[in-house]
């Protein structure tokens, strides 16, 4: 008779822990992309100063560096809270995977953050202290430090989505890293990094363009606005195109490592070959999903029902049903319990090795042993479906927007834009650019909703579901800190927006 696995965790604890992590992660992600994006803008502006020695470019660079600094200061330490939550709310997860997860986070803190901190000081304090070349290098290295930070955090997150380079140790109850290179350079991590960073450049670009459009509307700092639009829109167009390409690569990675996430993103219940990509229900791009997932218009894409019930692809590859995986997962868990008991009691080595062999042959489905029902593997379909569409829609809109605003600024092609003057457009044109700033953030956050909602119910894909990962805390304590964060973050966000708007209104120091 199979034994029932019951984890006596309050359901409220699980949901409040997830909600708290989501709140702090969303809040943290308000600051990071603008840091990464503005780093490129200010780097280009200062490079122009270095090359031309024109004081205009020095003041332009200093202006964007000022706004960078406000955002950087407000974003400092917002990520630390996430690490606190790992230790308090997600203790089983922290122990189970800490050997792997902890390494990239530690490297991020030691190497990347110190690099940023060192060079940001030279950037702000060193205008009259160091040579122009060293100052320029410091500005770019500040951005590079922030980007390297992003690399290590995304390595950690990519590992949650596609765990590689590790082996489970039944004695320590930990997954242990066996290949640092496999973890740090996993193809999933590389795609995720490229896509996340290029999408962050979009945020920096639209912020630059939006602020510049506000100056044009107010007939202030016209030259700074026009030149900044050229930089911002140029960076934005390149970034949006790169984000699209890297997004496609990420989609292929998801199709391979997390097919259920892809099925949820598409609300695809019954898969097959030659799958179209839904724009909305009823309208689809023929073959689009098959191409996105497999680079082949005839590629097989499994649906939610296929993944739950098991399927065989046209080329003969078989995927077991969730119920089969649950059986194997339960075997792994029971064998692990028996193994530990046998070792503790000093049982015969043959018994210990027998249990170990069962663990090893079923470990890849360990997490499935915690599922109560086969439908537990299905992530929230509606959230994934719409968040994906918002993200892609916003991305496509920005390709168009940046292309048009570049064309208007350069008045090219002359036949279409020759008579347009970027400084004399109707006010609503500028308001569109300004309104695109919050839309960019919405698109960016939707990307993370797809990534993290699509991963549900897993904290580590296939290894550990959320209810096995949380600490056995009272839900009320998690709820209290959730609302504490909500108040704290709302206050801090209001303060930052207030300071940013004041500095934008003040303008560059001429």
């Amino acid at each position, binding site marked *: 008779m199979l034994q029932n*696995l019951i984890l006596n965790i309050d359901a409220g604890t699980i949901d409040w822990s997830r909600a708290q992590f989501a709140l702090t992660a969303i809040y943290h992600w308000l600051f990071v992309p603008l840091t990464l994006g503005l780093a490129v803008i200010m780097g280009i502006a200062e490079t122009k100063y270095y090359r031309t020695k024109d004081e205009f470019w020095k003041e332009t660079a200093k202006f964007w560096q000022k706004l960078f600094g406000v955002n950087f200061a407000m974003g*400092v330490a917002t990520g630390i809270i996430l690490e606190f939550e790992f230790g308090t709310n997600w203790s*089983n997860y922290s*122990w189970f995977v800490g050997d792997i997860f902890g390494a990239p986070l530690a490297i991020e803190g030691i190497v990347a953050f110190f690099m940023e901190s060192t060079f940001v*000081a030279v950037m702000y*304090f060193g205008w009259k202290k160091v040579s122009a070349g060293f100052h320029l290098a410091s500005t770019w290295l500040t951005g590079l430090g922030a980007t390297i930070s992003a690399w290590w955090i995304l390595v950690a997150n990519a590992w949650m989505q596609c765990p590689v380079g590790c082996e489970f140790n039944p004695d320590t109850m930990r997954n242990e890293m066996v290949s640092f290179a496999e973890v740090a350079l996993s193809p999933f991590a590389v795609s995720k990094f490229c896509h996340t960073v290029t999408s962050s450049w979009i945020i920096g670009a639209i912020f630059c363009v939006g602020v510049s459009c506000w100056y044009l509307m107010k007939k202030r700092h016209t030259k700074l606005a026009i030149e900044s639009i050229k930089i911002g829109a140029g960076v934005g167009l390149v970034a949006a195109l790169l984000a699209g390409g890297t997004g496609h690569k990420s989609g292929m990675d998801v199709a391979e490592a997390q097919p259920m996430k892809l099925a949820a993103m598409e609300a695809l219940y019954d898969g097959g070959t030659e799958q179209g990509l839904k724009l909305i229900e009823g309208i689809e791009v023929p073959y689009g999903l098959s191409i996105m997932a497999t680079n082949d218009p005839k590629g097989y894409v499994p649906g939610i029902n296929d993944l739950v019930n098991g399927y065989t692809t046209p080329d003969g590859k078989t995927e077991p049903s969730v119920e089969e995986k649950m059986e194997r997962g339960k075997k792994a868990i029971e064998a692990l319990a028996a193994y530990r008991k046998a070792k503790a009691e000093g049982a015969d080595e043959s018994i210990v090795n027998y249990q170990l062999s069962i663990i090893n042959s079923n470990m890849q489905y360990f997490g499935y042993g915690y599922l109560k029902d086969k439908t537990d593997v299905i992530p929230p379909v509606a959230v994934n479906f719409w968040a994906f569409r918002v993200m892609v829609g916003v991305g496509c809109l920005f390709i168009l927007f940046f292309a048009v605003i570049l064309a208007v600024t350069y008045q090219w092609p002359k036949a279409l834009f020759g008579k347009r003057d970027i400084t004399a457009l109707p006010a609503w044109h500028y308001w569109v650019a300004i309104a695109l700033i919050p839309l960019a953030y919405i698109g960016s956050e939707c990307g993370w909703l797809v990534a993290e909602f699509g991963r549900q119910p897993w904290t580590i894909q296939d290894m550990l579901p959320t209810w096995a990962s949380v600490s056995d805390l009272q839900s009320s304590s998690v709820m*209290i800190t959730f609302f504490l964060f909500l108040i704290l973050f709302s206050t801090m966000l209001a303060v930052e927006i207030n300071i940013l708007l004041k500095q934008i209104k003040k303008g560059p120091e001429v």
Partner: protein
Amino acid sequence: MPQKFRTIYMAKENFLSKVFHLYYDGFRSMTLGKTLWAIILIKLFIIFVVLKLFFFPNFLKQHADGNEAEYVATQLLNIED
């Protein structure tokens, strides 16, 4: 002190002096930076002193008492008939 070592000593002193003055003069001449630093310090105080101390203890350290593997095993392998 031999000339060679005096030159290295003075160069090192100069470099350290330059680094010191970079930060000293920089912090002294801050305007907006003073406000931002005040916000950073308040935020760090709230995060590390208030939140960490009172709301985010290390759960395993408190409950596992040095036997983390055993504690997590009990949590993850809780089996009933």
